[in-house]
């Protein structure tokens, strides 16, 4: 599930910080069924929920982005997953102030927190693992580097209508305290099933990164609905241990 999330986030991450948010609204809720290919048959393992909500602090109004993965109840007795990825971002620019990752996968647990300081150029991270004291670090990153979740949403602001098939966009994402260059290749349009939205014409985007987590060429693909909301309708991934997909089952608040 960590790898799935990595791919999901890397798949959606990019460095378009200058972009103004037009697609992501407060109150959105996307529900996905996560399936894994077992002996040629897709088996549903977990539900992934992506939600947005407005959060007010004493000085600012922020957008809270969350991505949650929970195994279906039939799997809980065998391998329970409760992963939560969150980011608090500026609603106009989607620039992050705080990123959190809380992983519970069977007996494995991990917590990660990034606080973005100095206009996003400095990150104060806290890493907590099972039976370990929290490890704090402060490190500098490029001004356009974003956490995985905020960039996940940021991708939806790219106007792929202006892209030609084969055109590549590179972007930077920070994951596991490492900055990573990832490329997104626009492959054209395709019509796919998008849960309660019906069959929708989508932008097909292939993701590549210099990491062992991704396998194959054009095997990690995301389909974004070709409308103003640009909802991720389908995500297919290929990792060293197999292949799988996230299928949109329900989208609301768009």
């Amino acid at each position, binding site marked *: 599930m960590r790898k799935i999330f990595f791919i999901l986030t890397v798949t959606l991450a990019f460095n378009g910080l200058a972009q103004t948010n037009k697609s992501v609204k407060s109150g959105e809720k996307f529900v996905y069924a996560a399936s894994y290919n077992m*002996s040629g048959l897709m088996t549903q393992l977990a*539900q992934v929920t992506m939600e947005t909500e407005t959060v007010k602090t004493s000085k600012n109004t922020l957008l809270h982005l969350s991505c949650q993965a929970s195994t*279906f*109840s039939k799997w809980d007795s065998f391998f329970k997953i409760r992963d939560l990825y969150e980011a608090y971002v500026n609603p106009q620019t989607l620039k992050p102030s*705080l990123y959190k990752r809380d992983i519970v996968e069977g007996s494995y647990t991990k917590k990660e927190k990034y606080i973005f300081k100095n206009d996003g150029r400095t990150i104060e991270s806290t890493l907590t693992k099972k039976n370990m004291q929290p490890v704090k670090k402060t490190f500098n990153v490029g001004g356009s580097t974003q956490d995985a979740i905020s960039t996940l949403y940021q991708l939806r602001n790219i106007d792929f209508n202006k892209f030609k098939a084969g055109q590549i966009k590179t972007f930077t994402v920070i994951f596991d305290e490492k900055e990573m260059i990832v490329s997104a290749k626009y492959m054209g349009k395709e019509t796919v099933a998008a849960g309660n939205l019906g069959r929708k014409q989508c932008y097909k985007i292939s993701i590549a990164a210099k990491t062992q987590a991704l396998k194959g060429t054009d095997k990690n693909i995301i389909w974004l609905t070709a409308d103003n909301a640009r909802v991720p309708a389908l995500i297919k991934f290929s990792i060293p241990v197999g292949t799988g997909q996230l299928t949109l089952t329900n989208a609301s608040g768009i």
Partner: protein
Amino acid sequence: MRKLFIVLAFIFAVLGIAFAILPMGTIGVLPIGLSLIFGILAFVKSPEGQKNIPKWLIIIAALILVVIVGRSFVPDEVQKDTEFEQKKVESKQEDLKDLEELEGLE
């Protein structure tokens, strides 16, 4: 050959039972389908009076198949996890504190 078919039908039936117990979904159809095929072949190859074992293997495989197919119609659901929900609420309170502190630095 008859014995081989019976052994194979038995092995795949056991695998099918294991898959039916585990939440493997429709993957269980693979071993149970093979069990049915080998069971039927064993039944065909068996002389009169020796069809009892393959007959029961076929019946068992068919029953497991019904269970697996029946379960595939049950919708997948996430159990309500109050502990997890509580953790999220507490986490959010902590986040707001962090954000207020961050704003205090700006």
